[in-house]
């Protein structure tokens, strides 16, 4: 199946795993014999794979800017923004000090307890990773806590390739807390702290404020770094130029952005837009 050109191949951000699968089930009702190959990774890793020659019919990422940074115009003409989200701090009922952590004391709980492990995803591979670093930068300004970003950056315990891996690690008890998308926390029934809009990267009205946060990640070519500026979170989807099934890919996008897809996105904690 891996090399079957008739197989419908979708490459997507890990955070979109569940909604993408549910939309595929709608496609299967129309085409019961359709072979589908789903592959997922951090969004920057997905984009690099396509830029490196991987042929897929559809690519859905957690940040439209990844398309612009790595894939447009050579591999993709345009991307379509279809959902928004926000950053939260996820944990579960077994996380150390889960009974006392709040939206006001989270940084002190994380930093002042040596037994607590908290993690993030890899900012070079996954937008959730660089958005976590942006959140920490914005938190330093918002709470007027000089040195907070460095303290948080110096004390994390684990880094995972993508946000979904971080959430799984949390469920397995490898970390107590993880900086996650609200959608991922909801999909896995994780407890979570909702941050103020000034730091959770959810609100277009605060776009200028978010732009104060900047993170350097590996660029499209070895040794070439890219600086990413904070923006409101927006997920996007596109049909690569080398897609073998452009009509089917468009049909999938129509499902995802239509009434049924919007219900699926809402049920999975995303906001269709």
């Amino acid at each position: 199946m891996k090399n079957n050109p008739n197989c419908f191949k979708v490459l997507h951000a890990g955070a979109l795993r569940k909604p993408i699968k549910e939309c595929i089930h709608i496609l299967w009702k129309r085409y019961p014999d359709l072979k589908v190959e789903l592959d997922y990774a951090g969004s920057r890793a997905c984009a690099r794979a396509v830029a490196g020659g991987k042929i897929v019919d559809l690519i859905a990422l957690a940040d439209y800017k990844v398309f612009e940074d790595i894939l447009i115009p050579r591999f993709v003409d345009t991307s379509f923004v279809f959902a928004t989200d926000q950053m939260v701090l996820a944990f579960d009922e077994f996380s150390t000090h889960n009974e006392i952590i709040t939206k006001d004391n989270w940084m002190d709980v994380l930093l002042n307890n040596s037994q607590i492990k908290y993690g993030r995803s890899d900012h070079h591979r996954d937008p959730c990773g660089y958005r976590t670093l942006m959140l920490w930068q914005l938190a330093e300004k918002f709470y007027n806590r000089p040195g907070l970003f460095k303290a948080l950056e110096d004390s994390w315990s684990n880094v995972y390739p993508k946000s979904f891996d971080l959430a799984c690690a949390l469920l397995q008890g490898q970390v107590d807390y993880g900086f996650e998308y609200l959608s991922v926390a909801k999909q896995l029934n994780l407890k979570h702290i909702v941050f103020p809009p000034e730091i959770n990267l959810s609100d277009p009205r605060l776009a200028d404020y978010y732009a104060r946060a900047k993170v350097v990640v590996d660029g499209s070519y070895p040794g070439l770094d890219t600086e990413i500026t904070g923006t409101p979170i927006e997920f996007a989807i596109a049909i690569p130029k080398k897609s073998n099934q452009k009509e089917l890919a468009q049909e999938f996008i129509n499902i995802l952005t239509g009434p049924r897809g919007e219900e699926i996105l809402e049920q999975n904690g995303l906001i269709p837009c």
Partner: protein
Amino acid sequence: MAIKNGEDITLDKLIQPGLLLFVYIKPSHGYELIQNYNKLQSTEEVEPGTIYRNLRRMEKNRLLTSSWQISESGPARRLYEITEKGINVLDETAAKIEKQKLQVEQFLSLYREQKEQGGSADEK
């Protein structure tokens, strides 16, 4: 709060009338509407999710239509436009709000008058 052609619209916090008005002024995408919304409603923060949901609700009720706007510099976004039904509802809503405004002014006028006269019989 019923409106003849706009029984599907809610006047709560003026979210839907405000969005209808902005889209009537200029077809816009949700991101832009959220950025503009505070111009109309500066006293109460409305979450972006609430605005997106109201846009979809009004599209479902055929007050708005949407299509993808492909941009040369940036991603394609859903562009909302007002429909004939939406314009009718906007007109009816504005008339309704005008009526409410008169009622509010009459209430405040009577209230202030009473307070200036020393309040109720019990207070006196």
